[in-house]
């Protein structure tokens, strides 16, 4: 083994010992440059620029006018639409995370053992994941159609007229109807994540539990749930971020309507900027969203790590 390369091994030596290792490092850093430049210029820089825009009143075309922290104070104290959308987003995220996590775990348990039917159903449940949000939105718009849509026609045919709601046109149910679609859309994807996690649980644990005469429910409580907690943490974190990103779905289904009742923060940012031409204010909302997500992610990690 060449001594020079041992120095370049990760962890093999605390510091590069010689010229070759340092020269190699320089090449390695050079290899990251195209990515660093593209990402910094076209993604990071535009995001950080929000800080600058947020201090201005700007229609996106003319000269931005400096207004100090006005946007922030208005957003936090005196904007009923922003408040409404923020609480929409919290409800949406909460519903999606709870139901998507619960159902993906349930179906993962149901389909854990490899069999022909299990493989087929996994393929089927995963299927919506590959379709575009816009297509999914079109399909569900049809299914939810209040008069002729299949859902309401079915509900009326079994006499449940009281449940035949105006799914995408009512201020009370639209957000939940979209949350349902979101769960339908991604439950199969998270189920696959769970299956991978559950298959790591040693079979002996279940055998031991069975010897002790544990029921299915007891086995779930004593073995599956505690052993699957790391996977649950991953699923919940991913689903949370996914729910904050549901721009395509919400925008294509309702554009946040009626009366902002189904708007979430990402759609609000878009509409504030490109429908109302209030770019400075939209930048302020963007900063809020970034801080909010980072806070939620940190909180989630803390809860899931410290407790288990």
């Amino acid at each position, binding site marked *: *083994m*060449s001594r020079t390369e041992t120095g*370049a*091994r*990760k962890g093999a030596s605390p510091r*590069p010992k010689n010229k070759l290792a340092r020269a*190699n*490092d320089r090449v*390695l850093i050079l*290899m*990251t440059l*195209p*990515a660093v430049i*593209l*990402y910094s210029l*076209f*993604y*990071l*820089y*535009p*995001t950080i*620029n*929000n800080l600058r*825009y947020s201090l201005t009143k700007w229609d*996106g075309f003319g000269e931005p006018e400096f207004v100090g922290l006005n946007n922030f104070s208005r957003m936090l104290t005196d904007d009923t639409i922003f408040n409404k959308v923020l609480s929409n987003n919290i409800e949406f995220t909460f519903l999606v995370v709870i139901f998507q996590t619960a159902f993906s775990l349930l*179906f993962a348990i*149901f389909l854990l053992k490899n069999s022909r039917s299990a493989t087929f*159903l996994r393929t*089927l*449940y995963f*299927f919506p994941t*590959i*379709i*575009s*949000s*816009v*297509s999914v939105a*079109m*399909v569900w718009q*049809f*299914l939810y159609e209040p008069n002729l849509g299949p859902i309401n*026609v079915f509900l009326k045919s079994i006499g449940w007229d009281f449940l035949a709601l105006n799914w995408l046109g009512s201020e009370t149910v639209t957000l939940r109807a979209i949350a349902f679609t979101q769960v339908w859309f991604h*439950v199969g*994807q998270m189920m696959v*994540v769970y299956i991978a996690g559950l298959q790591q649980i040693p079979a002996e644990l279940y055998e031991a539990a069975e010897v002790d005469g544990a029921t299915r429910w007891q086995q779930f409580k004593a073995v599956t749930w505690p052993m699957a907690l790391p996977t649950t943490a991953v699923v919940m974190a*991913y689903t949370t*971020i996914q729910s*904050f*990103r549901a*721009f*395509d779905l919400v925008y*294509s289904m309702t554009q946040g309507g009626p009366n902002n009742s189904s708007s979430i923060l990402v759609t609000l*940012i*878009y509409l504030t*900027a490109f429908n109302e031409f209030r770019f400075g204010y939209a930048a302020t909302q*963007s900063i809020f969203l*970034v801080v909010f*997500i*980072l806070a939620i*992610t940190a909180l989630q990690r803390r809860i899931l790590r410290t407790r288990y």
Partner: protein
Amino acid sequence: MFYKISRIFALTFLAVLIIIPVLVVVFGSFKTDLELMTKPLALPENWTLNNYRTLLDGGEIVTNFRNSSIVTLFSVLITLFISSLASFGIARVINVTGRVLFVLFSLGLAIPAATSIIGIYELFVRFNLTNTLHGLVVINVASTLPISIFILTAFFRQIPNELYESASIDGARPFRLYRSIALPLSKPSMAAVAIFLFVITWNDLLYPLLLITQADLKTLPLALLDYRGEYAINFSMIFTAVMVASVPMVVMYLSMQKTFVSGLTAGAVKG
């Protein structure tokens, strides 16, 4: 007993919940709009290709399909190349830069794309990149680098050092090690990332909506929204367009299921 019954009930319920919308769309694209509205679940009485003919005669969908193909192909290939280079560098570099860069890219993972649209729009207007397909490629590459680098770096870190060492004796330098050892070994990971990128780029609405207004440059998801307006909620036509837009992904999914599933869950598992 209770478990078995509820299991079968739940499995059937979700299966129906997915199969029915699929059938409604597939059958609907071969029906008249009236028939779709009155009997959404039935087989078409007369299988007609009229919807497809009308759509193709319009010609726009062919252009949209071409735009989506160009943008997706170039975005995926460029992202794969740049991100694999960078991931190799990040995984192998021994000073602190690797960790700093990794954190820098990880930042892009948690933040929703919508929070950067104002800055992106301003920048692209300034560089004359709006209403261009290459502009779309640029933003797709920049925005998918974090997730690609995240997955690939994790993979490159798993390659045992011994493999590199044997080549290093022959004096191979980083780029040679990347090309002749890391890349060949990472084929399954690269395929998974490629599929992941394919799906999100082909299906993306946000960036085309932000940057493209010219009809002949629109991609499929953006065009679908237009069709909805144009055909005044004529769902059989809309479903025909949905079929055209979904065919490539469906064909790929059915022929490469394993890669699809691992690709679309890799980000989550490693996150």
